[in-house]
């Protein structure tokens, strides 16, 4: 402790050496929580009713793994459609056109306001409600006619049902993201002669992503579990239905529930890692510039980053104000 650390150009002062405040409460509380946690783990692992051998066997079952595949397809498929719709809806809500504005408002009101289960049942019944679909002039002659059952299968009904519901929630997230970007950014782009569409794509959206990504990651994880509701359509190949069907067949529902839960946990963990990297990518240039480079010191484009002075001060978490802020609004 007594060795003096030398900085690049000057020596840092010898830090204060003082005995820390005794905190017995910390040790006691930590010990209590650790004992409780050990009891919980023990109760899970040693209980024969959980049938861990059955869990292990069915974790790798081909029907279960296929169910995981369908769950992933539904999750990412519906999220992809929902993101595109949400960006459209958010732009419509910000538009000057009263028709665009109110249609977007109505869409969000309706899909957020009704239960997802009801919506999925409805999409499952679409071929009963509208037996035939046609292409043609609105209120006029029809050119092509389809049987609804051929076009909207259970899978597509499930996918569309999930996507439309999600789009309403994501639209609000995107809208919050777009309004979080300083209007001065669009103004500067406009002054440079950029078109509105380009301003949105090149300047506003990339910066809005910083605000949009964290809640969207949250929504994706939520969607992963919501896919289990597509039994309402009914679509029966995804993870929850596949595992509970096996559980019913072999009269062991509990181990199969655990199988599904473990898979959901695994996928969620992978999603959280992905979200971390997305947040780092879209955080570039912000938060004092240090977070963009991360610990490795290299950004997403392989550029070297040095943590800013302000970033180090901010990392201490003891100040909210920016002492180096030069802007006096």
């Amino acid at each position, binding site marked *: 402790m007594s060795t003096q650390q030398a900085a690049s150009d000057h020596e840092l002062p010898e830090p204060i050496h003082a005995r820390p405040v005794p905190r017995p409460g910390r040790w006691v509380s930590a010990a209590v929580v650790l004992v409780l946690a050990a009891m919980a783990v023990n109760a899970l692992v040693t209980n024969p009713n959980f049938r861990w051998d059955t869990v292990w066997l069915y974790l790798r079952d081909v029907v279960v793994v296929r169910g995981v595949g369908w769950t992933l397809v539904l999750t990412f498929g519906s999220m992809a459609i929902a993101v595109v719709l949400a960006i459209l809806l958010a732009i419509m809500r910000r538009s000057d056109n009263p028709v665009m504005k109110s249609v977007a408002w109505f869409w969000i009101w309706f899909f957020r306001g009704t239960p997802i289960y009801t919506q999925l049942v409805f999409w499952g019944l679409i071929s009963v409600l509208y037996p035939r679909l046609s292409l043609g002039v609105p209120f006029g002659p029809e050119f092509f006619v389809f049987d609804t059952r051929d076009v909207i299968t259970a899978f597509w009904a499930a996918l569309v049902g999930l996507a439309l519901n999600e789009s309403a929630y994501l639209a609000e997230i995107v809208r919050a993201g777009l309004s979080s970007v300083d209007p001065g950014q669009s103004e500067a782009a406009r002054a*440079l*002669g950029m078109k509105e569409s380009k301003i949105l794509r090149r300047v506003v959206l*990339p910066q809005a992503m910083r605000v949009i990504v964290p809640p969207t990651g949250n929504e994706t994880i939520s969607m992963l579990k919501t896919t289990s509701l597509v039994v309402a359509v009914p679509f029966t190949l995804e993870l929850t239905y596949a595992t509970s069907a096996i559980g019913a067949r072999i009269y062991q529902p509990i181990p199969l529930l655990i199988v599904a839960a473990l898979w959901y946990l695994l996928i969620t963990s992978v999603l959280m890692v992905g979200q971390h990297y997305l947040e780092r990518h879209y955080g570039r*240039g912000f938060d004092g510039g240090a977070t963009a480079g991360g610990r490795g010191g290299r950004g997403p484009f392989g550029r070297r980053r040095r943590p*800013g002075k302000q970033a180090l001060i901010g990392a201490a978490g003891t100040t909210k104000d920016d002492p180096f802020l030069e802007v006096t609004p």
Partner: protein
Amino acid sequence: MTEQDAAQDPAQATAHAMVEARGVHKVFGHGADAVHVLRGIDLDVARGSVTVVLGPSGSGKSTLLRCVNELEQITAGSIRVDGELMGYRYDAKGVLHRLHPKRIARQRARIGMVFQRFHLFGHMTALENVMEAPVQVRGTTRARARARALELLERVGLSDRVDHYPAQLSGGQQQRVAIARALAMDPEIMLFDEPTSALDPELVGEVLAVMQDLARSGMTMIVVTHEIGFAREVADHVVFMDDGVVVEEGSPGEVLENPAEPRLRDFLAHVL
């Protein structure tokens, strides 16, 4: 460089001024809430000249600047830049039409603007900020835009900061990047909206030095500022605005040393 050609050709300068504002009015809001910010402005800015606009806050000087590049739409009057009517066109029958936003964007591309709060694109490095408009608006190749951007960043003295994000730069450095970003479009005129008002006092000098250098190269500039020293040294023409009208204008010598208007005398007494 285009700005030098324009400045050294006196024949062109006599044809028409770089900016001609005629009877410009700007009203914000409607009915009882309406605010009449510009009340009939006439202004000529000669090619290659530096015009400094002075005035107390709320006098409409920033609004006037923002009207020149159509960031604000004027309520009445007309503004011509290089002889071209901003935001409107007359058809063969003499009927006035509002221009399509794409055409307005093209008009703006020829006018550089520097803001009080810099407004650099936060998710791009200094280099990317300067390259953005040439690549996205002009369709310049990335390699070319990059070479030009490096040249401009060197000109504003920031060759060692090209890969820094705006948040990693001081205010003075950010404003110099913002000037380079505007210059990358090879504008015919540069508008400066209080470019040093958001800066710490010790950083004002570096930005003013870049602007002075730019003025010397023959760039046509309109500068809204409170820096009387800059007006005295660099300006060819000084305009004093108050309450939406031009109260007094002329050479810096006339306007700053022998102000005729009591309002201007009062203003100068406060800022000096």
